[in-house]
């Protein structure tokens, strides 16, 4: 079972470069999320989507953009990479809005901005 798949697993960017972190899920979940995880800081919500064509900002959206053209895919775009965006990025999905249902996470993308 694939679940939530993130690519790439690792990436090094130079300051000012742009890139897209890919996320796809095969569970037909409507809800999808992007988090970043910094050491000792837990996970912070960047953006989320409640269905195809609908996205909204989370706690730390600055410097990022998202799109949701299909139920399966939820890519995260960094336009002008900055050192502060060095982090581990996790994509997650859930069948329903969180409460009793788990969020299913991918294995993360480790991103370094130099």
């Amino acid at each position, binding site marked *: 079972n694939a679940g939530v798949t993130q690519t790439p697993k690792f990436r090094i960017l130079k300051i000012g470069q742009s890139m897209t972190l890919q996320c796809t899920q095969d569970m037909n979940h409507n*809800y999808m999320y992007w988090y970043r995880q910094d050491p*000792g800081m*837990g996970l912070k*919500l960047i953006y989320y989507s409640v269905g195809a064509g609908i996205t909204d900002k989370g706690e730390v959206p600055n410097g990022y953009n998202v799109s949701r053209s299909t139920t399966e895919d939820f890519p995260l775009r960094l336009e002008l990479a900055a050192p502060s965006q060095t982090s581990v990025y996790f994509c997650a999905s859930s069948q329903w809005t969180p409460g009793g249902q*788990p969020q*299913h996470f991918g294995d993360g993308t480790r991103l370094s901005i130099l």
Partner: protein
Amino acid sequence: TQLLEQSPQFLSIQEGENLTVYCNSSSVFSSLQWYRQEPGEGPVLLVTVVTGGEVKKLKRLTFQFGDARKDSSLHITAAQTGDTGLYLCAGVSKGGATNKLIFGTGTLLAVQP
């Protein structure tokens, strides 16, 4: 801003010992989830507690939700090396188009053989 503080941040114990991890907030949550994360992987849900005062057991793990739904604890009995990992609590915050998870700062547990 809703915050969840976990303590301790890091815990190193011997196999067979007991331990408790705490998750505290000044905010009330509709429910609270506990996740475990292993190196190089995403978090995996262990349990969801919903009712104030609720206690749930998962084999050697016991989870409790505070009466006021502001705090929670995770107790592990007779820890095993397989329990090693990062434990994250996450409060469910209602509002907007979807409920959101507010994650705690995490407790890194190392169980030595």
